[in-house]
């Protein structure tokens, strides 16, 4: 058995929606992080409220966890489907916990896996609970195998149910204990090959989703206004803002539709506060028109677009990375915008915070893209470093400056394309902002020369942004033989795939595109230096590849794509790599 440093334990719980799997997953995961371990938690669930097939998969390591694996060490099967579907994923030596009274007549085809019956329902009832408490019994049983700290687990059960839920917490703790004891008594839990042990002295870790990290980053950056409409997988951003409305003194407006959302955010930003929207592709479609209003009036708004598989309603609760060209090209005409795509929770936090600086410094819409896998997976991370987030509001002029510069030219043509901005209500700053083309003062003007000046100023602004846009990030060894080209949530799986490829004797690294538009100028050089480029994306056509070719002429012939609504993983990438022709066209 591998030592603690090499620990790599994955635990999957599966069952119908509404049976507390998510909550149990949280307890298990937080217990791990409190033990000083790192976790990554992803979940799969269909678009319905009760029933269906739901899983939570918790991966635990002593070092940071970049993503999930396609294999697991332990399964808790709350229904038969979990057993049937996930049996094959269990590693040799792994364990499947199930209630034989519930899950009957299964094939149990694996000789290298232990099938451990735990009377989940009976023990739940014995503890004084109902069917819904089966998962807690299972949690206890799992702890017996893997060594989860029971004290911490019990503490988390209590915290979760609060003061009012004390009695219920006791029942749950009892149920967990019954599960633990049953497992310890009936099975050789000691022989289980994956053991979690506390790492004292480790800094405390947050358990945080991409959505939460984005919301937190926005709040840290001083965002005071979110106008949002529920849409999976972006809804948690609005929920987080709403819950913290009073504590953080901000407004979260649940709007009548996404069109109202973008326009309210524009109104708020135009009036001088940092404002944003959060939505998924369908909502973004509706905001396409508003995006151009922000651009034309040069109002700084931040838009979070969390991708899910399309077109139309598509697969509302699954993952995909297929909105790149849409987001870069949405709205008629030509104007500057910035598109940035974080790859993990940490980047979600810092890049969302920074998005507000880009938006205000260049007075343009900034779109931060995410996807279901990134948005709803939990990452463990130390507290973010607040000092790394600074607020730069760009060129906002006040009364004194205005007095000296009358009449105020809101759309004055500067060298870098950025014009002075004023907060409405300021004396001496009165001006107009039309959505029509206009002169420097904000008067509608159809003169060809005026149009030319304004178009060219906007182009210069775009160029100014492009000059500052950071190069793609490189992970892994320099000068590797293979470079995996990725964006967004594929970062983690790709980085982990490097280890798998290494084992196959392939020295690879990862080039992660973070700033997508304006296209980073440094990218072309990096791409040309690479020995062999392999595109890895969560879509069917290779959208980043298309963008790269458009901007550099470089065609990446080799592609590993996934488009079945499920996230890429290190193993998937390795598998994909193995089936590449290997040649370079």
């Amino acid at each position: 058995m591998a030592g603690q440093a090499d620990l790599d334990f994955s635990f999957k719980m599966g069952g119908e929606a509404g049976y507390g799997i998510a909550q149990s997953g949280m307890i298990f995961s937080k217990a791990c992080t409190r033990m000083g371990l790192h976790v990554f938690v992803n979940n799969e669930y269909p678009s319905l409220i009760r029933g269906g097939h739901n899983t939570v998969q918790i991966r635990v390591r002593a070092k940071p966890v970049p993503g999930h694996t396609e294999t697991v060490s332990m399964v808790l099967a709350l229904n038969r489907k979990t057993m049937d579907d996930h049996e094959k994923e269990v590693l040799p030596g792994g364990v499947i916990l199930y209630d034989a009274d519930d899950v009957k007549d299964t094939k149990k085809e694996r000789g290298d896996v232990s099938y451990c019956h735990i009377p989940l329902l009976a023990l739940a009832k014995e503890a004084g609970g109902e069917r819904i408490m089966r998962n807690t019994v299972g949690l206890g049983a799992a702890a017996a195998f893997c060594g989860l700290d029971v004290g911490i687990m019990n503490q988390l059960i209590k915290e979760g149910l609060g003061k009012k839920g004390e009695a219920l917490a006791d029942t749950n703790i009892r149920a967990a204990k019954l599960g633990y004891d049953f497992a310890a008594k009936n099975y050789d839990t000691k022989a289980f090959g994956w053991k979690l042990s506390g790492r004292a002295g480790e800094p405390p870790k947050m358990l945080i989703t991409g959505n939460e990290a984005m919301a937190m980053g926005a709040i840290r950056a001083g965002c005071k206004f979110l106008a949002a409409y529920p849409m999976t997988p972006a809804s948690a951003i609005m929920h987080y803002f709403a819950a913290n409305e009073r504590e953080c003194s901000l407004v979260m407006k649940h709007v009548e539709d996404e069109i109202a959302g973008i326009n309210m955010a524009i109104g708020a930003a135009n009036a001088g506060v940092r404002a944003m929207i959060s939505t998924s592709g369908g909502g973004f479609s509706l905001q396409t028109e508003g995006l151009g209003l922000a651009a034309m009036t040069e109002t700084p708004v931040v838009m979070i677009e969390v991708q899910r598989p399309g077109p139309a309603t598509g697969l509302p609760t699954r993952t995909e990375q297929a909105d790149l060209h849409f987001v870069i090209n949405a709205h008629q005409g030509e104007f500057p915008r910035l598109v940035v795509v974080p790859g993990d929770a940490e980047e979600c936090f810092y890049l969302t915070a920074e998005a507000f600086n880009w938006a205000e410094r260049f007075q343009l819409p900034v779109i931060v893209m995410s996807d279901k896998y990134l948005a709803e997976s939990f990452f463990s991370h130390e507290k973010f470093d607040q000092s790394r987030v600074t607020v730069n509001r760009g060129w906002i002029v006040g009364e004194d400056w205005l007095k000296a510069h009358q009449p105020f030219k809101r759309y004055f043509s500067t060298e870098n394309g950025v014009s002075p901005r004023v907060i409405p209500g300021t004396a001496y700053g009165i001006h107009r902002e039309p959505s029509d083309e206009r002169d420097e003062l904000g008067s509608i003007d159809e003169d060809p020369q005026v149009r030319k000046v304004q178009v060219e100023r906007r182009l210069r602004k775009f160029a100014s942004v492009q000059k500052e846009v950071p190069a793609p990030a490189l992970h892994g060894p320099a000068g590797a033989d293979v470079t995996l080209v990725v964006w967004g949530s594929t970062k983690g799986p790709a980085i982990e795939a490097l280890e798998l490829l290494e084992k196959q004797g392939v020295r690879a690294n990862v080039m992660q595109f973070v700033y997508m538009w304006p296209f980073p100028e440094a990218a072309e050089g990096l791409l040309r230096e690479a020995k062999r480029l392999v595109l890895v994306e969560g879509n069917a056509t290779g959208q980043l590849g298309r963008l790269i070719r458009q901007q550099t002429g470089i065609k990446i012939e080799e592609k590993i794509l996934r488009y079945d609504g499920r996230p890429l993983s290190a193993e998937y990438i390795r598998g994909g790599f193995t089936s590449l022709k290997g040649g370079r066209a």
Partner: protein
Amino acid sequence: MVTLAELNSGKIPDWCPGCGDFGILNALKRAMMDTGLPHEKFYLVAGIGCSGKTPQWLNTYSIHTLHGRALPVATGAKLANTDLNVIVTGGDGDGYGIGAGHFLHAMRRNIDLTYVVFNNLVYGLTTGQTSPTSEKGFATKSTPFGVIEVPVNPLALAIASGATYVARGYAGDIVHLSKLIADGITHRGFALIDVLQPCVTFNHKNTYEWYQKTVYKLPETYNPADKMAAFQKSMEWGDSGIPIGVFYKESRPTYADELPQLSTPLVKQPIDNVDIDRLMQKMI
């Protein structure tokens, strides 16, 4: 206390000579002066249409938005800075057609806005198609055989949706109209002032002459607190008479009133160093 000279943008309105919009513009200026509010605290938000050009002729802070989207933009601005006096102008197509959804929702929120609708019963700027308020049978470029649907009744919708100040004015009676607008500005909450506006170019049915004959003021005895009476009055239309005045009025906390975090306007709250340590602690 803004003056007429200060309000002038120096640009000459490019509306058709004789357009009812001129009357509304004058009434609006007058109302703004009458409120005695400081010049730079006005923030105008306009939709797209002939009517939407209004802020171009005024020297105030303003944003000219998208067709149908003035109310959400105004809502965002008001919530961001409750110290601004936010006035919204737009047309019947803009507000009751493409913007109808926002219209309903802004009213039930009782956002503190003054919404002046230049209701000419036609699409002006796109050269004369039917509008949601066009009368049944009205022939236009888009309805050469006459409008089939019954018109939207903006006042009844406003009353049904929870607007707290519902009025109708007439572009031909500037004194009366400016009072309606001024009261709308002073009113705390959502104020709708639907204004009957002759479009001399594309509406040859609902003309000055016609309105001069049909429009009448709600009597002194009319009680704007009576919701059912307001519904009843809102149904009156046509040759037999069109009432103008305040149809309905009630006092209810505004949306912002119910948000304690707005005791200081958002725009004035410091953001340089928002401490999120407690938020992060909760995640552990």
